């Protein structure tokens, strides 16, 4: 930078960048992990701690849990929703046999231990039993699809546990 005019321009640019950054952070419904603004030579970066609660309650611990969660990492879970996850790697069958009615459908209530599907692994038919009770809200995988261990197959609402 070689003259006053340029310096003034940079200052203005900076002001602008800051206002924008603050506004951006306020406007975002989902709490950002980082904001990075650049305009020419000017750049502004803001980073938040991972997992920090949006309202930044002072006591909220930011630590990562000791063990990774048993389900495969996927985008933000709705806290009210629970899932029934595949107990094995293999091919998913939603019905006891071709052409038969599925074990369960949307709206059905399942109890813990109730069979909800079959996983075929190396020609072995492994019963897929619900880990917990709930009312099925969605079937996330199709009949005949391959699933990993722990992959979400059904979403359900919580009900009074059996």
């Amino acid at each position, binding site marked *: 930078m070689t003259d006053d005019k340029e310096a003034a321009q940079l200052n203005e640019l900076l002001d602008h960048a800051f206002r924008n950054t603050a506004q951006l952070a306020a406007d975002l419904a989902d709490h950002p992990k980082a904001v990075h603004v650049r305009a020419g030579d000017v750049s502004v970066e803001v980073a938040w701690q991972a997992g920090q609660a949006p309202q930044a309650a002072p006591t909220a611990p930011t630590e990562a849990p000791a063990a990774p969660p*048993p389900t495969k990492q996927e985008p933000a879970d709705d806290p009210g929703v629970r899932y029934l996850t595949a107990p094995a*790697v*293999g091919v998913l069958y939603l019905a006891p046999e071709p052409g038969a009615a599925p074990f369960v459908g949307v709206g059905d209530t399942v109890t813990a231990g109730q069979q909800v599907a079959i996983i075929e692994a*190396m020609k072995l038919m492994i019963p897929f039993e619900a880990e917990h009770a709930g009312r099925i809200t969605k079937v996330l995988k199709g009949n005949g699809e391959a699933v990993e*261990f722990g992959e979400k197959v059904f979403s359900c609402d919580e009900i009074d546990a059996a």
Partner: protein
Amino acid sequence: MFGKVLIANRGEIALRVARACRELGVAVVAVYSTEDQDSAVVSYADEAVQIGPAAAKQSYLNIPAIIEAARMTGADAIHPGYGFLSEVADFAEVCRDNDITFIGPPAEVIATLGDKTTARQLMAGAGLPMLPGSLEPLNSVEEAQQVADDAGYPVIIKAATGGGGRGMGVVYERAAFADAYAKTRAGAQALFGDSRVYVERYLPAGRHVEIQVFADDFGNTIHLGERDCTVQRRHQKLLEESPAPRLPDGLAERMGDVAVNGAIAAGYRGAGTFEFLLAPDGQFYFMEVNTRIQVEHPVTEMVTGIDLVAEQLRVASGERLSIRQQDVVSTGAAIECRINAEDPERDFAPAPGLIEEFVPSGGPFVRVDTHGFAGYRMPASYDSLLAKLVVWAPTREQARHRMDRALAEFRISGPGVHTTIGFLRETIRHPAFAAAEHSTAIVEQMLDARAGQPEVDLPSAVA
């Protein structure tokens, strides 16, 4: 060459195999347990499939899960690494039945060589030198006692299906034999579900020297020289080197020749290792064959310049060996140190955890194979091997100084995390090791000498 390979393993070896695949233009499928979701190989791989919970039995040893993972990703072949399913003949067979290439020898060869009894019979027949003792499992304490008397004490009683230093008993005098025999049989039954044992002469001050062999589908069987794995703690190798220091003239070549004979007799294919016990008098004796890539394969790579894992992939995909016996030239000296997350002050108890600081060694002629990184939470569920530090130099003495330097600069820390780095530096500097006059007893001797002595801080410069 394969289009896509699934790696049925974890840790540093999974990354090692993935690197070889990447260099050959082969797509990589990682499989992982819930405990390994954030592991290095999972982010490294082109695809990754979660196959089960932390317990190895339900994940890395779970044959149906791994086969299904290969199927759903369309992998042509499976590399088993070492440990886990690498020497399970059934797994090799299931792969074949599912039209997936198992990267290793045929199932029958694994089965034959994995059983100590059939392996010993086969190798004795192929002219490999055997320790005095029984070639077959023993049927009674009387028969066993007779074999022990003939072999001469001390003798070792070994489970026919044992491994990893478990299921063994050493007997120093005749009077103690019957009791030890009964105990070892009971232990073998408990550990391996097989009470068969055999008996052979025990060499208390031996060295462990092994030969790397390689065979392809076109009748080519070669060896890539020897590795010295004498530095062990309770039969677990801590440090390996190549060439084996101070061998009598021509001995390494003789060992290489008999190993090749053994491999041919077994109908071997792929990479394998013939382990020998070397007596102080220069005599060597066949111990066993490992039908997989070894943890310590990098020392062979460093002195020969041959990428053993790439060669495994080539041979398994039906190509010829890329080298002939006469092309194998060993140059200089290489040493590998196994950096384990263990606390030497607490009897080498596993000490994994969140690794906050992780700065690997670097610079000239230093190689690091590790799945560690800053921020890695090393799980307690598996093996404690965290990194292999390998150095090369024109001479063993220079390699020793280089290793000392490289060990000193490796920084690993985190709450509750301990490593064997300090202990390995002590070993590297130990006079017996420096002079290559050590035996498999060296670690015990070091620990005995240590007990009662105040701890000494190592100076940072080479003495």
